[in-house]
């Protein structure tokens, strides 16, 4: 099994070098490799793994991956949200802006950090730092780890919807590469609010979904006890999302999960980020933005009777080239 993975990884590098378009075939292979049994237990076990309190957090990874990290605070508008962290670090000596949700690593810290559920000011801080990165040509690494945006009255009062919407739009216009890594829970709009990027990675045992399995069970299946079943329906695992082409690549964790050896998990993330940044940094900004948009533009499954329409859509894409 390990050998196959190694071979596959070699194949991928080769394909990249030779500019062979075998991405689709590799995707199929990998999807099978990462375990084929789509049953309740596998999805649910990932959900549980992704939520482990022992699982490394954003700051844990930052401390291992980046040298000389300086945390920068505040949205310059209302507050500094401890559930969202950010700053500047060096990745192999090159400056990078990092943002990410931060859970607590114990009960007390979790209280202070709202369990990694950010308020509007958290999303606005992230946007401020991303714009700062853009201004000075630094790429952005975004680490996603949240069950969702904070759902309280203050969040509504201060415009959590506006804050997420603004980020979604602005992240698509940022003229430096953005690498997203879902390291734990990718919960709905709260995750997506810092989840737009040129390359979206998921750690092997992380999850990403529009609603929690519990939420899905109680709202759609009208039976709160069916969370395990809901998890299997929602298809929130890295494998599922890779198959759906919603994410670009899965980053392996050490056997047993990232918490068993954070150093190894961090090294894998570091390699993946570095590889992508080396690829993305030289790209013309127009191409970067165009490809970022087109990737997300394709997400969605629907049926369209009239094929003629493809003509105008292609023209619309054509316009994008001139961006």
């Amino acid at each position, binding site marked *: 099994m390990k050998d196959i993975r190694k071979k596959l990884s070699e194949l991928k590098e080769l394909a990249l070098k030779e500019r062979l378009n075998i991405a689709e075939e590799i995707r199929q292979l990998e999807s099978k490799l990462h375990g084929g049994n789509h049953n309740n237990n596998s999805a649910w076990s990932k959900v549980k793994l992704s939520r482990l309190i022992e699982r490394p957090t954003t700051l844990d990874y930052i401390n291992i991956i980046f040298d000389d990290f300086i945390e920068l605070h505040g949205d310059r508008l209302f507050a500094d949200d401890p559930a969202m962290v950010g700053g500047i670090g060096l990745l192999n000596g090159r400056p990078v802006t990092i943002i990410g949700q931060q859970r607590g690593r114990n009960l007390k810290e979790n209280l202070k950090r709202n369990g990694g559920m950010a308020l509007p000011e958290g999303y606005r801080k992230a946007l401020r730092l991303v714009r700062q990165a853009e201004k000075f040509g630094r790429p952005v690494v975004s680490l996603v780890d949240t069950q969702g945006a904070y*759902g309280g009255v203050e969040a509504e009062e201060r415009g959590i919807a506006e804050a997420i919407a603004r980020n979604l739009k602005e992240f698509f216009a940022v003229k430096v590469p953005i690498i997203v890594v879902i390291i734990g829970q990718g919960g709905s*709009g709260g995750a997506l609010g810092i989840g737009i990027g040129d390359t979206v990675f998921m750690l092997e045992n992380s999850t990403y979904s529009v609603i929690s399995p519990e939420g899905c069970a109680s709202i759609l299946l009208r039976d709160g006890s069916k969370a395990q079943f809901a998890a299997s329906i929602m298809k929130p695992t890295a494998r599922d999302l890779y198959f759906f082409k919603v994410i670009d690549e899965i980053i392996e964790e050490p056997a047993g999960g990232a918490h068993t050896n954070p150093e190894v998990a961090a090294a894998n993330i570091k390699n993946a980020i570095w590889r992508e940044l080396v690829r993305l940094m030289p790209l013309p900004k127009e191409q970067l933005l165009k490809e970022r948009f087109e990737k997300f533009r394709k997400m969605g499954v*629907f049926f369209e009777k009239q094929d*003629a329409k493809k003509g105008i859509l292609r023209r619309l894409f054509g316009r994008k080239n001139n961006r």
Partner: protein
Amino acid sequence: MSVLGKVRAWFRGEYSRKHKLITHFIKDGDERLFVEKKHECPACHEDLNQPELEEAMYVCPNCNHHFRITPWERIKFTADGGVFHEFASDLESQNPLDFPDYEKQIASDMKKTGLKEAVVTGICRIERKEVVMAIMAFQFRGGSVGSVVGEKVTRAMLLAAEKGLPIVIFTASGGMRMQEGIFSLMQMAKTSAAVNFLEERKIPLFIVLTDPTSGGTTASYGMLGDVILAEPGALVGFAGRRVLDGTIKEKLPDNFQTAEFQQEKGFVDAIVSRSDMRKTLSFLIEAHADAQRAWK
């Protein structure tokens, strides 16, 4: 105005060759109009007379409650002559997650509403000014946004950007369509991304928040208008009240998650009665589209 002239020519020729356009003429008595007849105001419980209510654009004459209406009614009240040239009319939802009963639910809503999905997109005129318009239907799966709604809204924005037409979106939505899982979440990304195409070309986006607008719709294009209008009393928020009431025990302000609350909190430019909506949109379209020309 020669630009409008050109648009008209394009619209009748080039455009219709590439898109299948369905032209609707929405008039009183159109069978598409009345999804459900009302006999009592849900707000003040006043007995209502259907023709009178229709005359008042489905606004309670007693308490100003704005009823939820269908896209066809909205078109009748907004578009010149009730004429609406619909595009992307034949997109239909799939069931990518094999979610239990999802196809049945879609089929049933199609039958109930006569709509194919939770948004209608097209081109029409507002006081002679051509605009792209998207109108969401709360009657169809609670106006939830799946791949079809996301795609149609995105196309509407790209088309407006390409053709230099202002765009008006009437929202009415319970949020993302969870039956489509991660694909529905990604519609937030896709539609928000499309707003950049409008921005780049300085095409104004007018959002009208109608009752109810919540979840991912608010947290994407719903909050990205150059001008954001709302109908009086409309529920506008992010998290469902159920979530808020249930899991977080906080005392909610009286007007919590209403259009009025959102205006107080700085997220709504103006609250506009249904009877003033058409002329307000018309004024705003002129003030945005013609500023540079007007000052030349």
